């Protein structure tokens, strides 16, 4: 019951066209009996895996995604409410428990294949699908900008519509009237002929005994009342009075506090610990060596070596204990690695021109370049970036009677459960992960390293413990957005038209299409070399798009300049067969008054980015006064297909732009002697109030498949910004961040990589 069986899958898959997509996302069958103990309480009836109805007619949307600030839980509730004809004022959200029954196959699939359109996810053979299915059973990921466009579209709307049908059928049976005469409105069932009206709650029990359809008829957008409207977010009121509970706010009886330090050089072992001074501090309870996890698993694996934890009666005491520890770390082969040596290594790997892994080839770019009159070349680079979520990493673990409970805010509760169980040698069903609101995540909280440490410490001391990382540990032990180098060559025809695009870059992660370009260029050759470092890499808001957006949209701008064309018009000409992209680009340019002349020292730059199913164009306007850069205005146009919550989408674009702007202006993690140099917000700065430009976001509901919202605004900021700086003062910036670049001292046209 409730398990995906081969037969259940095949019956779901035996549909055609869009139907199979629904089958993939929803587990067929009636599952509420098994799920009720997991999610329903007194006076609540679970009618569908994702929907319960209380006796007072409150409807709860059970959403299998975490809340890290992106607002997806409210948007998903809107999708349930819409299809259910529910009274929005009586909707509440509950996050699904970290249980296999709520593992999300569609999300697993989407995460593995993100970037492809959903129907393309179907692999050629059923056996292939089943294999992937098994891989996905432990996934409950919030990431990849997937929540609304995949879970919402293919599960929450389906659940809402199916539940409405169940309720109508139950009422029709009880009232002895034809099903088609029973209508719904504001969480009530109505029958005009007999003037009957009943709340959904009255028929919840009868509805729950039936099997929901996984292919109900969904509403047409023209009929939407809740979707497409900016409903106030359900999670906001407790966030303004201090009552919102984050993982850091968990309190357990007898709980103690811990903090931790891992080797500054990733992977270094502990050689010796002198804990005499630490243990002498009043309130310090224990000093513990926490082993490195051996798992190669992507969620739980952290090859970064063992750590030393101090347990105390207070976090403050634990930090004093940590400072008093004398730890000697063992040698590693990476003790002399620096940012400089890493970039040298990348440059050499690219120069070797061997072992190039092809991403995309069309035509013959090499030949076109060899034959071209005009070849433009440019090299770009970006540094490592940390995530610095506002809430420092923390978790609380309690082990009693062979059961381990962990309270943590994370992006993959089931993956965390698996990683924790493996580390403390428990069966997975004896580990419970209670997912909490996340004080930011941005990809960092998809990796379980700190939660695993917490469980290991709890096991070692036999008491409930809250582990809190200091900000310094957070900055120095991240899974960083990788540093990389990207090299370009392009061939221009006599009229300036680009005929060949050659790109080689270091290290690929995901999504696979990130380095690709939307432009109609006859000869394209895009490939990469792998050049491993000891620095742990991970997903960072928009993942590989964060660097490739900067690379490709800077270079196309350089080509426009070389061709002596307007950068907007140059792009537009290359998008003639891409009407969606063209419309987005045009909207941004028009709304930003692209053609309107600017004062001396001012400039405008444009960028275009397609990622996570959404197309975004940005125009950045800057002023440069005596070398001082000010970002004055950003105009974004966003084709997201359909915005379920327009204001939520606008907020996410603003947020993603601020995140990208922080990185462009300040973001730089450097390495010396194998270790990260930066440690806190004083040397790893974040954008602040006075630097936040005015951002105008224009949403385009094109009616195409829904795209993601959370990450898509990030990649386009940096290129539009450097393009604007070029427009203002004629200086081309090819490496980030801008903080150390003295614009005043640069002469017109000088490349920064040459300086």
């Amino acid at each position, binding site marked *: 019951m409730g398990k995906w069986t081969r037969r259940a899958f095949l019956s779901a898959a035996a549909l055609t066209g869009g139907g199979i997509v629904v089958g993939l996302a929803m587990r067929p069958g009636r599952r509420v009996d098994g799920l009720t103990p997991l999610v329903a309480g007194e006076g609540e009836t679970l009618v569908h895996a994702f929907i319960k109805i209380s006796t007072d007619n409150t409807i709860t949307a059970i959403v299998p995604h975490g809340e890290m600030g992106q607002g997806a839980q409210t948007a998903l509730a809107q999708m349930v409410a819409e299809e259910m004809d529910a009274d929005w004022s009586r909707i509440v959200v509950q996050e699904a428990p970290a249980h296999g029954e709520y593992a999300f196959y569609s999300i697993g699939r989407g995460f593995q294949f993100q970037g492809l359109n959903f129907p393309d996810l179907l692999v050629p053979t059923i056996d292939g699908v089943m294999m992937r299915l098994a891989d996905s059973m432990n996934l409950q990921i919030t990431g990849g900008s997937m929540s609304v466009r995949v879970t919402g579209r293919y599960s929450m709307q389906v659940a809402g519509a199916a539940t409405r049908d169940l309720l109508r059928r139950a009422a029709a049976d009880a009232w002895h009237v034809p099903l088609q005469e029973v209508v719904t409105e504001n969480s009530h069932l109505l029958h005009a002929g007999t003037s009957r009206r009943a709340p959904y709650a009255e028929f919840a029990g009868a509805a729950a005994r039936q099997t929901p359809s996984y292919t109900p008829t969904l509403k047409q957008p023209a009929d939407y009342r809740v979707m497409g409207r900016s409903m106030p977010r359900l999670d906001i009121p407790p966030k303004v009075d*201090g009552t919102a509970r984050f993982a850091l706010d968990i309190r357990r009886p007898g709980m103690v506090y811990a903090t931790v330090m891992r080797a500054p050089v990733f992977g270094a072992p502990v050689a010796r610990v002198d804990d005499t001074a630490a243990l002498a501090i009043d309130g310090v309870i224990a000093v513990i060596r926490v082993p490195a996890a051996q798992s190669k698993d992507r969620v739980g694996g952290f090859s970064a070596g063992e750590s030393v934890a101090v347990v105390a009666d207070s976090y403050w005491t634990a930090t004093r204990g940590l400072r008093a520890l004398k730890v000697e770390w063992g040698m590693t082969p990476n003790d002399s690695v620096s940012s400089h040596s890493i970039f040298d290594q990348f440059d050499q790997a690219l120069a070797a021109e061997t072992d190039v892994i092809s991403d995309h080839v069309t035509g013959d770019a090499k030949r076109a370049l060899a034959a071209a009159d005009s070849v433009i070349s440019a090299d770009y680079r970006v540094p490592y970036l940390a995530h610095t979520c*506002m809430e420092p990493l923390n978790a609380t673990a309690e082990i009693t009677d062979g059961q381990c409970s962990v309270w943590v805010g994370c992006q993959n509760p089931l993956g965390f459960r698996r990683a924790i169980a493996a580390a403390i040698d428990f069966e997975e069903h004896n580990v419970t992960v209670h997912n909490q609101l996340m004080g930011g995540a941005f990809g960092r909280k998809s990796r379980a390293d700190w939660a695993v440490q917490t469980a290991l410490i709890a096991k070692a001391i036999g008491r409930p413990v809250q582990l809190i990382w200091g900000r310094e540990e957070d900055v120095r032990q991240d899974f960083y957005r990788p540093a990389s180098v990207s090299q370009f060559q392009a061939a221009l025809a006599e009229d300036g038209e680009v005929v060949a695009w050659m790109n080689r870059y270091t290290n690929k992660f995901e999504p696979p299409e990130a380095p690709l370009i939307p432009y109609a260029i006859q000869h394209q050759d895009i490939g990469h070399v792998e050049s491993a470092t000891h620095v742990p890499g991970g997903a960072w808001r928009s993942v590989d798009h964060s660097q490739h957006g900067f690379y490709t949209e800077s270079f196309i701008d350089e080509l426009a300049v070389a061709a002596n064309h307007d950068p907007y018009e140059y792009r537009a000409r290359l998008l003639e067969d891409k009407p969606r992209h063209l419309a987005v680009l045009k909207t941004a340019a028009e709304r930003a008054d692209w053609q309107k002349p600017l004062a001396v020292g001012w400039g405008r730059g444009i960028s275009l980015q397609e990622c996570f199913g959404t197309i975004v164009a940005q125009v950045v306007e800057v002023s440069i006064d005596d070398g001082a850069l000010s970002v004055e205005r950003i105009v974004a146009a966003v084709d997201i297909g359909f915005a379920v919550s327009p204001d939520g989408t606008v907020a996410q674009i603003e947020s993603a*732009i601020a995140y990208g702007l922080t990185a462009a202006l300040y973001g730089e993690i450097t390495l010396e002697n194998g270790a990260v140099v930066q440690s806190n*917000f004083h040397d790893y700065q974040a954008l*602040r109030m006075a630097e936040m430009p005015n951002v105008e976001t224009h949403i385009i509901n094109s009616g195409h498949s829904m795209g993601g919202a959370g990450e898509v605004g990030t990649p386009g900021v940096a290129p539009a910004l450097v393009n604007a700086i070029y427009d203002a003062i004629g200086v081309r910036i090819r490496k980030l961040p801008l903080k150390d670049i003295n614009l005043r001292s640069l002469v017109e046209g000088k490349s920064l990589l040459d300086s």
Partner: protein
Amino acid sequence: MQQTVTINEVKQSIDVNPEKPLLWVLREELALTGTKFGCGIAQCGACTVLLDGRPIRSCITPIAATKGRAITTIEGLAGAAGQPHPLQRAWIAHQVPQCGYCQSGQLMSAAALLTQQPSPTDADIDQAMQGNICRCGMYSRIREAIKAAAAEATSDSGADG
């Protein structure tokens, strides 16, 4: 050491190391978890509370330094009868929070600003809020919400007068 503290107009006596930062006294000893830890070195503002009406970073303020002075935390921002502060209403109306983790600190800094400057200019807001980081980047909404709360308070006092 025994010390008397006045938090949100409630006076109480606690036994605590006088060097322990106010942040951890609030969070660990007094169950006031609305005030957040962000950096520990007064760089991010997540731990902002009011000391005699002025914003301070509680992560670096020893509890001994608060002796005889009034502390206000996010839990004490609403009025006596529990009616929300105008800033809290504006924060909801403008849908300010994303992850929400920094917002207690943002609200306390904004509350101190409005006490000192009931009709703040953009420059006043920049200056007062410069110590509060929001990694979700909701600065424009914070600015608009402060202006809305200020406008409301000004028009209220006008009506009263």
